């Protein structure tokens, strides 16, 4: 609901309502993991994109469908159960990567797959293996991480910051690397000496088996361990934590709330509401993947017939990554916001390329 408005949308409104009243609207389904489309988080952000589209196209309908187990096979089965009844199916998250074959068998239905690329026969597609009716988007998490790193470095009072992740899957490593680069960038440009704290016992091992350091809970749904890890970092003197650990992150939030003067940076969506702690709020800002725009834009493409299958990784250049800077939703100083905005411009131009799991750059080799 924060980044939802964009000026581009406003111009299309009139056209959309006009045509919408004549022809039957799109039938849209949005399929999500167990937490559902009203989870106030990842799924919700996708859903907001659909809602915005429907607002402008009242003839379109949406049915949110929740898959109960979170198992990847069950997720695909849930899509298969309803595939015949919809024009577009929005699939929220990596659980739905397995829809590749299903999509090929049902060329009349369009699929929007967020935060994952599809697999065919269990193997992930390469960038050029486009399925005609699947639009699949990854996001450059390292960019969101980069803003978070900058925000942390610019706001710390102890000079110690940290990033907490779930498991060292590429998306998490991207967040971690981006964060470290952001801190490094601030240290370099501002002449500061902010330390990124890593506990050796929580170091992550990425999918290639390499040790990537960082702080990994080892799980995406273990709030208790998240809290233990958060506490351990706070005990090391960390006062800003970037949390990209799914449900485990809730535990880190709690640790921060119980401690004094510790702030967290949310990820994926604006997590300001989760930071409420009595009269205060512990959320400094959030690193964003602007998924609702992706969904909204692609739905419009479906509507006007310009839809094309694609496997993309969306970046700052696509306005797909960002951070929260609205008054009342973040606690960054104006100065910090300005500095991050400046860096964001450089990212868009490609003048800064933060390290990612597999882009050949590491936080150590990162320069600008």
């Amino acid at each position, binding site marked *: 609901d924060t980044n939802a408005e964009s000026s581009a949308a406003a111009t299309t409104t009139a056209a959309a309502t006009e045509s919408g009243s004549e022809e039957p609207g799109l039938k849209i*389904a949005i399929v999500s993991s167990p937490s559902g489309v009203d989870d106030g988080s990842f799924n919700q952000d996708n859903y907001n994109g659909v809602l915005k589209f429907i607002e402008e196209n009242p003839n379109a309908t949406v*049915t*949110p*469908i*929740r*898959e*109960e*187990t*979170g*198992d*990847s*096979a*069950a997720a695909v*089965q*849930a899509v*298969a*159960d*309803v*595939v*015949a*009844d919809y024009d577009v199916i929005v699939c929220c998250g*990596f*659980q739905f*990567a*397995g829809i590749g*074959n*299903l999509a090929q*068998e*049902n060329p009349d*239905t369009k699929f929007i797959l967020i935060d*994952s690329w599809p*697999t065919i026969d*269990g193997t*992930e597609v390469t960038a050029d293996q486009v399925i005609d009716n699947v639009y699949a988007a990854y996001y450059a998490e390292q960019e969101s991480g980069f803003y978070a790193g900058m925000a942390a470095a610019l706001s710390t009072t102890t000079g110690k910051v940290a990033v907490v992740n779930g*498991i060292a*899957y*590429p998306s998490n490593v991207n967040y971690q690397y981006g964060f470290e680069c952001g801190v490094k960038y601030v240290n370099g440009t501002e002449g500061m000496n902010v330390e990124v704290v890593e506990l050796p016992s929580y170091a992550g091992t990425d*999918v290639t088996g390499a040790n990537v350091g960082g702080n990994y809970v*080892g*799980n*995406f*749904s*273990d709030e208790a361990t998240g809290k233990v890890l958060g506490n351990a970092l706070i005990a090391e003197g960390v006062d800003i934590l970037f949390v990209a650990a799914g449900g485990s992150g809730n535990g880190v939030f709690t640790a921060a709330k119980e401690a004094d003067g510790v702030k967290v940076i949310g990820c994926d969506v604006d997590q300001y509401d989760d930071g409420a702690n009595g009269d205060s709020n512990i959320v400094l800002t959030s690193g964003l993947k602007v998924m609702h725009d992706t969904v909204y834009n692609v739905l419009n493409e479906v509507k006007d017939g310009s839809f094309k299958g694609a496997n993309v990784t969306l970046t700052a250049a696509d306005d797909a990554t960002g951070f929260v800077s609205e008054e009342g939703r973040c606690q960054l100083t104006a100065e910090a916001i300005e500095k991050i905005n400046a860096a964001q411009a450089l990212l868009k131009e490609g003048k800064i390329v933060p390290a990612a799991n597999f882009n050949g750059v590491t936080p150590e080799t990162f320069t600008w």
Partner: protein
Amino acid sequence: MKKMTKFWNAVKIPLLAILCSLVVGGVIIAVTGSNPFKAYYALLQGSGLSPKSSYASYKSMLTDFMSYVNYFTPMIFAALAVAVALRAGLFNIGVSGQMLAAGFTASIIVGYSSLNAVLAKPLVVIIGLIVGGLVGALIGFLKYRFNINEVVSSIMLNYTFQYVISFFINTFFVDPVSRQSKEISASSRLTLMDTMVGNLKMDIPLGIILALLTVVAVWFLLEKTKLGYELKAVGYSRSAAKYAGIKVGRSMVLSMMISGALAGLAGVTYYLGYVGSIQPKVLISTGFDAIAVSLLGNNNPFGIVFSTMLITLISKGSTYMKSAAGVDAEIASVITGIILLFSACNAYIKWKMERGRREKTNKTKEDK
């Protein structure tokens, strides 16, 4: 004729309970603003028991039904596992853990090998039987030898398996896209996935044949054999069983072993049949639901087939119900809960009915 009345007596009370709960569930659905008849019909449609208005390519009512069969096969085994243990007075609350242990072992030994189907499939079943049986036997043995309550040891083992297997999956067998264990080979899978039959692409669950055979076998074992008699005697009275020369300890271990082996079959038909991979650190609810399913089926193997089909029908059809009738999947679980609630009152309904009948006969006697 006599057989018919006997059958009718056995089923009329569960049927009444189900009817009551469908009425209550219908009221709830109506209150949330949907049409209960449409919702219930959608459950049938979603499970392939009545036709949908449109089908995806290569799909029909038959493929939906096969998918439903694929879905409920593990539950039949799981409920049988509960029933066999209950016969001997033991409460196997560890079915989920045993399923996981069996499924994981079979996955890593066979699922990731290159064995051909003729060898792999029977081997998977055998491993399921053995692993589940061993775990069950261990629980029985702990009870018999050390007087450790089976509920406690099952729960402890549930957790232990959950964590240990999660460790192995995350460390050695993870698929970075789906974030669960790598999918097993098609040749080891107990369901022939996406098999072209005529113009249809269906999942053919081989497990159902095994399941139906097992139902008959378990029924025969419990009702017609010496072993069944012994288990029942031990279940009713350990002291009297001992007096009768039955080896109480052996019977307890044996019944837990059989129960565990059945749970193992549930595990392989779930993990190597229905889904094909394992979510780390998730204990599926099948094992717990199976307790209710088994009791709804009156702990009778044939009753279990019907109670399984009923309970799984609701969860299986819930996706389509949401899609076609707009009823939330959560409501489906609430209805399941209500059905179980009513059937838990079986004994009471029976008692009421018997009393009613007695009063009637008394009256007629008096009239004479």
